[in-house]
């Protein structure tokens, strides 16, 4: 990608005004915004209270898994209407006749959602920090206490790596939902497709396959390979770098940066595919585009 088109998409993109619209839509005290603001405010408040109350018993992992779980449905929830919903509401044509490219439209919506994801990741640093402090207090007590036994603690680097991994995973989910939203006729179909893909790939499949890896040694490697990019598996390995004994077929070092790289690539792939898919105006007739006019 050359510099001008990079600037066109990420700096001088008029569609970045979507950021303000997203904020008004999901983080405000009107209409849908009121519901989402109260809902996420409540979840965040509860998490924070729990972490502070039980500071020396809650592992950082709990906060990280909560964040990961939230991301799995926040991304589809805020983006499934992004394109399909505009087609349904017949507002889509207004964007297509505006002097912006299809790529600018998709990237504008994507960045608006990514801002939300980043905001969530930043907010989550607070409860995460509390658990880290609680953990080090506990570590000192247990190490110098009477039994000399201590549970393993999570390092700062590994925690931040997990935060980054979760954020890139959530960003990939945004790109994926945007792709389904561009593809599907109805926004509910886009929501179903996104949630379905997430549940099947990252919950059902590992739940069905991973227990098999325990039983059969021949399959172990392949099953782990199939779940290599599962963020829940990856986070568990990142947080537990030096387990007392490690039985995995794939070395623990393969969890962390490889997943982050994969999610970034998948994000780019989904975005490119979504942009290619945005051919249809409201009434699903193909409009000027492709070779003749890069519109």
């Amino acid at each position, binding site marked *: 990608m050359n510099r001008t088109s990079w600037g066109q998409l990420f700096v001088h993109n008029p569609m970045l005004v979507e950021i303000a619209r997203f904020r*008004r*839509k999901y983080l405000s005290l009107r209409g*849908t915004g009121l519901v989402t603001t109260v809902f996420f405010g409540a979840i965040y408040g509860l998490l924070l209270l729990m972490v502070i109350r039980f500071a020396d018993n809650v592992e950082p992992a709990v906060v990280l898994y909560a964040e990961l779980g939230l991301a799995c449905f926040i991304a589809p929830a805020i983006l499934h209407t992004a394109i399909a919903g505009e087609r349904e509401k017949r507002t889509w044509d207004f964007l297509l006749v505006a002097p912006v490219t299809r790529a600018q439209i998709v990237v504008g919506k994507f960045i608006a959602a990514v801002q939300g994801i980043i905001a969530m990741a930043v907010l989550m640093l607070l409860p995460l920090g509390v658990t880290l402090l609680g953990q080090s207090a506990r570590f000192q007590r247990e190490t110098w206490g009477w039994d000399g036994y201590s549970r393993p603690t999570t390092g700062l680097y590994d925690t931040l790596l997990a935060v980054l991994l979760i954020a890139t995973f959530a960003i990939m989910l945004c790109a994926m939902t945007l792709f389904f939203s561009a593809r599907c006729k109805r926004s509910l179909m886009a929501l179903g497709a996104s949630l379905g893909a997430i549940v099947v790939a990252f919950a059902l499949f590992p739940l069905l396959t991973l227990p098999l890896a325990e039983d059969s040694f021949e399959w172990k490697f392949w099953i782990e390979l199939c779940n290599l990019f599962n963020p829940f598996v990856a986070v568990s390995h990142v947080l537990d770098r030096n387990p007392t004994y490690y039985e995995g077929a794939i070395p623990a070092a393969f969890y962390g940066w490889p997943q982050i790289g994969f999610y970034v690539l998948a994000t780019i792939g989904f975005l490119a595919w979504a942009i290619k898919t945005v051919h249809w105006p409201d009434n699903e007739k*193909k*409009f*000027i585009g492709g070779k*003749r006019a890069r*519109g």
Partner: protein
Amino acid sequence: MLEVKGLSKDYGGLRAVDDVKFALQPGDVFGFIGSNGAGKTTTIRMLATLLEPTEGTASLNGCDILDDPMGVRRQIGYMPDFFGLYDDVKVWEYLDFFATIYSVPGRQRPKVIDDVLELTNLTGKKEAFVQTLSRGMQQRLCLARCLVHDPTLLLLDEPASGLDPRARAELKELIAELGRMGKIVIVSSHILPELAGFCNTVGIIERGELLAFGPVDQIVRQVQVARILEARILDRAGEAASMLCGVPSVASVAPIDEQKLRIEFHGSLDEQADLLSRLIATGFRVVDFRELEANLEDVFLKLTTGAVN
């Protein structure tokens, strides 16, 4: 200026728009008339760069819709026949959103928004939420949205449908004002009287073909194959009728009542004068002899029922 050069659109085997050609100058308000399914929306969507023409193209002030759609998009305001508005946004936020997309500089935006609100008579609704507006106001807001970037061509697809008479009158006034501002305005409708008042140019489309195009009065004249004359003769109207039947340029004569005759005539104005002299010279007592003014509605009905071609 807008030049439409042989636009055609096929949907599978169906030719929805067939070789439509016309040109418009700044200030033209063009009434695009056709019954449902005639191809108005398809033509307008091609001009709006939303649909790819099967054949032909169009250009607006030198920008071709196929080669430079971005250049065209910067210059057009498009109002679809059916449209929606975003929920939970205020009127000014809605306009601000589109002004940003059209790259109106930030400093000018508040003034531009105030201007278009005033033009569309929505100033009092600036802080209102768009979903609380009436249908007529939403229509005007949509038009305001089309105007934030000061376009040279406005494409309004059936803008008056679903409006009450009052909202309709306001919309007409607004469209006429846009014409006076020097914009090219294309307004489509399947209801003729809606357009007759304020368009200076009309085009009649039927089954994808542009059957007639030009200034309103010219079209009316051009299409009138036979003019309709009405004569009122105090007595012996029947005799007069048989006499008139013998005149070569009279196509038919039909009595309306005891005194009135309806004469279908395709002679020149000279011949028309001769006809009257002849009636009087023969001794008929003529009290009224006039041409019935054909209006756009007649023209439309005549064209679309295939009386021409």
